[in-house]
C-alpha cells in the first residue's frame, strides 16, 4: 500500500514538472482561472444589489451558501474535473497505457492530467468561504465547528463523484460532453443559491433526486441555526457526509461498470 502511494506521489510530481515546462502559460492560466469563480460570487452580489433577500436569505447568509458551493466545486474540479477528458484519453491510447500498468486506472488518469493551474480557483473559493462563515454571525458551538470543517470536504467529495459519474457516460456515448456539463456546471450554479429560489419538479430533481441540496443549502442552514423553510428536519444539515459517501459509491460503481463496458467494446 505504501509503495502504491509512493507511485501515485511520483505521478503527481511528474505532472507538476510537466506543467512547469510551460512556465509563462502556467502563470497566465493561474490568474485567468480565478476569473470564473469570481464571476459566481459577483453574480450573487449583483443580485443583492437589486433585492435585499433571496429566497428568504440575506446577503450574509447567502454568502455562506456561495462560499460552500464555489470552494467545493473549484476543489473538486481541480482534483477530479479533468476526467471529463476521458474520450480523449481513449482516443490517444492513454487509457490503454494506464490499463497495462500495475495501478488503478482512475487515480492514474487523474494524477497524470491534474490541472494544477486550477489551484488558484480553489484558493479563491476557500477565501470566499472563510470570509462568509466568519461574517455571517454564526453562533459557534463545538458541533458547528465540526460541521464547518466536514461540510466543505463532503461537498468536494460529492462534486468529485458527480464529475466521475457523468464522465462514465462517455464510455457508452462518446459525444456526451454537453450532457455531463449540464449536470456538473448546472450543479455548481444550482448550489450557489438557496434551493428555495427554485420550484417544482426541477427543485425536487436536482436538490433531492441528485442530492445537490446537501452540498451547500442544508449545511448552511445548520451553521446559521435556521429551520428549513421547506420543512426538512434539522438533521438534514448534518447528512451531507452520508450523501457524499453514497454519491462516491455510485461513482465508483459507475466507473467500474463503464470500464468493463469499454473492455467489452474496445477501440
Amino acid at each position, binding site marked *: 500500500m505504501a509503495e502504491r502511494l509512493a*507511485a501515485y506521489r511520483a505521478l503527481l510530481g511528474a505532472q507538476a514538472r510537466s506543467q512547469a515546462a510551460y512556465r509563462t502559460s502556467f502563470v497566465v492560466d493561474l490568474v485567468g482561472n480565478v476569473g470564473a469563480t469570481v464571476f459566481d460570487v459577483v453574480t450573487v452580489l449583483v443580485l443583492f444589489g437589486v433585492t435585499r433577500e433571496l429566497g428568504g436569505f440575506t446577503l450574509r447568509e447567502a454568502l455562506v451558501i456561495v462560499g460552500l458551493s464555489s470552494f467545493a466545486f473549484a476543489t473538486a474540479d481541480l482534483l477530479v474535473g479533468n476526467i471529463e477528458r476521458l474520450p480523449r484519453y481513449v482516443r490517444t491510447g492513454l487509457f490503454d497505457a494506464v490499463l497495462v500498468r500495475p495501478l488503478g486506472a482512475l487515480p492514474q488518469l487523474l494524477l497524470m492530467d491534474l490541472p494544477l493551474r486550477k489551484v488558484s480557483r480553489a484558493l479563491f473559493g476557500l477565501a470566499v468561504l472563510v470570509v462568509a462563515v466568519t461574517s455571517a454571525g454564526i453562533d459557534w458551538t463545538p458541533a458547528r465547528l465540526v460541521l464547518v470543517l466536514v461540510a466543505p470536504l463532503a461537498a468536494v467529495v460529492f462534486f468529485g463523484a458527480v464529475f466521475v459519474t457523468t464522465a462514465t457516460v462517455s464510455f457508452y456515448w462518446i459525444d456526451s460532453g454537453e450532457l455531463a456539463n449540464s449536470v456538473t456546471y448546472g450543479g455548481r450554479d444550482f448550489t450557489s443559491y438557496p434551493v428555495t429560489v427554485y420550484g417544482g419538479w426541477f427543485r425536487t430533481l436536482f436538490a433531492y433526486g441528485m442530492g445537490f441540496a446537501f452540498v451547500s443549502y442544508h449545511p448552511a442552514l445548520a451553521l446559521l441555526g435556521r429551520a428549513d423553510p421547506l420543512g426538512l428536519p434539522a438533521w438534514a444539515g448534518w447528512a451531507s457526509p452520508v450523501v457524499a459517501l453514497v454519491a462516491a459509491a455510485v461513482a465508483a460503481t459507475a466507473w467500474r461498470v463503464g470500464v468493463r463496458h469499454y473492455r467489452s467494446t474496445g477501440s
Partner: protein
Amino acid sequence: MSQVIDVRGLRKEFTVRVKAGRLRREKRVVTAVDGVDLRVERGEMLGYIGPNGAGKSTTLKMLTGVLMPSAGEVRVCGLRPVAERTRLALRIGVVFGQRSQLWWDLPLRDSFDLLRHVYRVPAAEHATRLRRCRDLLDLDEFLDTPVRQLSLGQRMRGELTAALLHGPEVLFLDEPTIGLDVVSKQAVRGFLAELGRASDTTLVLTTHDLADIERLCRRLVVIDHGRVVHDGSIAALHSRYGSRRLVVAELDTALPAPPTLPGAPLHRVEADGHRLVFALESAGVAEVVAGLAGLAALRDISIVEPDIEEVVARLYRSPAQV
C-alpha cells in the same frame, strides 16, 4: 508451468451500429477473434501476423488485460489478464508502436525513474537494467531530451527500455517497427534478438514487416479473419505453401538444351540461356552445383531464399485453403 501463455477458444465479438436507412441504425455483431488457440513456452519468440483487421491487436489487448474476451480461456503467467490485471502488469511488458508509455514533456530519463516507482522496482535492479538498455540501444545522447522532441526511432528505443525496466517475463510488442527508418529498424531488431538470446524473456510480436519475423522468430502464427491459419516454423510455412529456395547459376556459354537435374527442376531461363534458375526440391545446393559443373563452365552461383512476403500474401488471399 512452462507455458507462459495458454489461450483456448479465445473469441472477441464487437457490437457495431451501422446505418440502415435514414434514421434507423442496426446492431451488427463483428467477430474480431474467432476461436484462437495458442500455447507459448517460456523463452519463445513468437511472430503474430495477419492483414489489417485480422484480430492481431485485439488478441494482444486480451492477453494484456486491456480487453475482456467474449469467450474462451486465457492465462498469461498463470493469471487471468482482466481479473488479475494489476498483478499481471508487474510481470509483463507492453510496447504499442502507435501509443506511448512515456511522459511527453519530461526528459526520457524522468520517465524511466517514474516507471521505477510505478512498478516498485528496487533501485539497484532498475539501475542494472537501465545501464544495459543504455548500452545496447545507445540512449545516452538523448536521455535528457524531453520525449516530445525525440525522433520516432529514438522514442521507440525509449519505449522498449520503458517496457523492460521491471524485468517482465513476457514482452508484448504491437508493431514496434512501424514508421521507423531502416537504421532504427535494425537497431530495434538487433536489440530484441539480443534480448531473446541472453534471457528467457518470452516475446510476442505483431508486425507488418516480415523482416522483423525472419530476423527474430522461429515460430510464426498467421491469423486471418480472427482465425489461426498457420502455426509453426517459417520453414513449415514454406513447405506447406510450396515456396522453394532457388539456385541461380550464371554460365559462360548458354547450353544447347535446358539441362535436367534430379530433385531440382528448372524454374526459369534468363539472359538468353546464360542464367538458369533451379528450384530446390529434394536436391541440395551441392548436388545442383555438381550436376551443372559437369555440363557447363560456371561463372557464378547464388542462392535466393524464399520470399516470405509472397507466401503470406498468398495465404491472406485464400482463406479457403485452410
